[in-house]
């Protein structure tokens, strides 16, 4: 039997290249553990770098579908790339399983029966922090995000569960490096907590400068997991210590699948996996479970879809099910950045804030 081809379009170059690397490594690990198979079916993983450019990603998708006759795609890191690629490919009778990006458009109005998200809906990660900050009794929060729609979406996610005052809501330039002005204004506003969504290098810059201004001692910072994954933390170190952040996964979650995954990942790649790696791994295992049910036959798309929707696999998150718009229903946690015994920086799970949490876009989704 021919191996089932899976196309992975992901970002390996540019500053964000490590995100794609994590997803790919997690996915690959699942395949390697079965000796080149998923769910007992041999698979072939095709990986290509989209350079974070939507049209390039589309080009790759086109090649995967037309040339390699791929029926299953995955791997896109960024929401805008996903928005560009996914609607077109799912209409071409291809299954897309998102291992990271979960834009609201694809969860709501743009949902599709061939589109599955195994990671999260973007807002989830902010909602959990909003709830936690709210429940912990902070009354005045200062918000910070880049000036683009995703920035506003993420802050809205936070505000959905946070009921206190907002002393400031600042939108910074996309890709900004110096935050001295924002930090000065923030200090003057005198909030009792700060929530920021600044992905990638912007977050590193902010955290470092925030700590250098001495504010991390006085005003606690909260953020989504994106600025606190285990690889970024090695670049921020002390400046992030003690920061609470929201995530659907952490390497110390206590379930057998996770223990096994973290150990295997560390052994293979010599580093602690990040949430992206866990998502890649879960995506692979999810597909494995489905391939097993259809016996490696991807020609019957309906059957394959059904099999995926069952989500009959041991997720590293402990519990996992698909909601009506085919996004995860899962527990979401607050983690804290700590220094591990070996001197590296990592996250420790504080508590599960949401149990079996879905997303607000389910209502908008009229699945066809």
């Amino acid at each position, binding site marked *: 039997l021919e191996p089932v081809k899976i196309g992975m379009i992901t970002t390996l170059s540019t500053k964000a290249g490590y995100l794609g690397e994590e997803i790919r490594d997690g996915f690959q690990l699942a395949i390697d553990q079965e000796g080149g198979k998923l769910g007992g079916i041999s698979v072939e993983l095709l990986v290509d770098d989209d350079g974070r450019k939507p049209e390039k990603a589309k080009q790759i998708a086109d090649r995967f579908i037309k040339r390699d006759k791929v029926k299953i795609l995955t791997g896109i890191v960024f929401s805008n790339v996903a928005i560009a690629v996914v609607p077109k490919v799912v209409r071409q009778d291809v299954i897309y399983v998102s291992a990271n990006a979960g834009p609201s458009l694809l969860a709501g109005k743009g949902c599709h029966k061939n589109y599955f998200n195994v990671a999260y809906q973007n807002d989830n990660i902010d909602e959990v922090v909003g709830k936690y900050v709210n429940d912990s009794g902070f009354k005045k929060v200062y918000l910070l995000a880049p000036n683009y729609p995703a920035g506003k979406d993420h802050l809205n996610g936070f505000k959905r569960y946070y009921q206190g005052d907002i002393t400031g809501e600042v939108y910074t*330039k996309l890709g900004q490096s110096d935050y001295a*002005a924002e930090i000065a*204004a923030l200090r003057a506003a005198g909030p009792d907590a700060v929530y920021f969504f600044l992905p990638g*290098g912007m977050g590193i810059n902010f955290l470092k400068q925030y700590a250098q*201004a*001495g504010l991390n001692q006085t005003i606690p910072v909260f953020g989504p997991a994106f600025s606190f994954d285990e690889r970024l933390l090695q670049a921020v*170190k002390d400046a992030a210590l003690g920061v609470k952040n929201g995530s659907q996964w952490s390497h110390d979650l206590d379930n057998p699948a996770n223990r096994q995954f973290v150990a295997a990942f560390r052994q293979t790649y010599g580093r602690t996996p990040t949430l992206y790696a866990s998502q890649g791994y879960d995506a692979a295992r999810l597909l494995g479970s489905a391939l097993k049910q259809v016996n490696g036959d991807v020609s019957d798309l309906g059957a394959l879809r059904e099999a995926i929707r069952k989500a009959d696999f041991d997720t590293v998150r402990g519990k996992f099910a698909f909601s009506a718009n085919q996004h995860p229903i899962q527990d979401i946690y607050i983690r804290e950045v700590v220094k591990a015994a070996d001197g590296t920086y990592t996250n420790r799970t504080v508590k599960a804030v949401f149990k079996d949490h879905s997303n607000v876009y389910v209502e908008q989704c009229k699945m066809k």
Partner: protein
Amino acid sequence: MLLFIEQLLNGLQLGIMLFLMSAGLTLVFGIMQVINLAHGSFYMIGAYVGATVAARTGSFLLGLLAALPASALAGMLVEALVLRRLYKKEHLDQVLATFGLIMFFNELTRILWGRQPLFMDVPPWLSGSVEIIPGVPYPSYRIAVISVGIIVAVLLYLLFTRTRLGMQIRAGASNREMAAALGVNIRLLYTLVFGLGTLLAGLAGVMAGPILAVEAGMGESVLILTFVVIVIGGIGSIRGALVGALLVGMVDTLGRAFLPTLLRTVFSAAYADGVAASLASMSVYILMAVILVWRPRGLLPGAN
């Protein structure tokens, strides 16, 4: 009022930091007239080498000491292998070649150092803060950056206007052939000056390391800003670069800090914030466009 002064200081600080970054480019681009898009790569090399050595040895100073020769050597190597053959060709050939170099260096760092950002910390002896203005603690490290920037400015100014070496470099920039025919070893001189330029880029990289993310591709975001600074100031003059840098630093900082408040007096809060954020993102470019429309050669153009 205190906040305003603090923001002015922040603007000054950003300006000087930008100057530090543009200083090397002023040499290479403003004076030697070589368009080196890969300048940001040397900034990155400086930061990576600095961060690596600092992490191994635990000493920021050792990191600095390693980064400077590393970026200078890398620069001289590139000059000798590639750019030297391009002085006589058109500027655009330099653009193409150095664009290729950016790709190469970015990917090379990814191969050598991996894809994730590196860590670099403020040295302990600069980690405190000082109250220059009572009530406004200011990070000592940033004051160190300002000082280094000013020292570099003064030294460069002296080098170019007061020494024969500086004159010969400028002479070579306008007419290599004549400079050679009058006995200047222009080839060696250019290699050295290029090395000095990349050394300054490396210096800026190391200095930025503790404040900014050290990651592959960090050079490009700085690169455009430094080009903006130089063009606003006027190509070919160190003074211009300094003025341009301060102006950009001020406009950027003050725009971010006070535009929302200002616009709120006219528009509704949400709308004002949106507009202010967009305007603040564009402020530097608006500034550049206005200045160039008003003075097509920049504020203090060097002679040419």
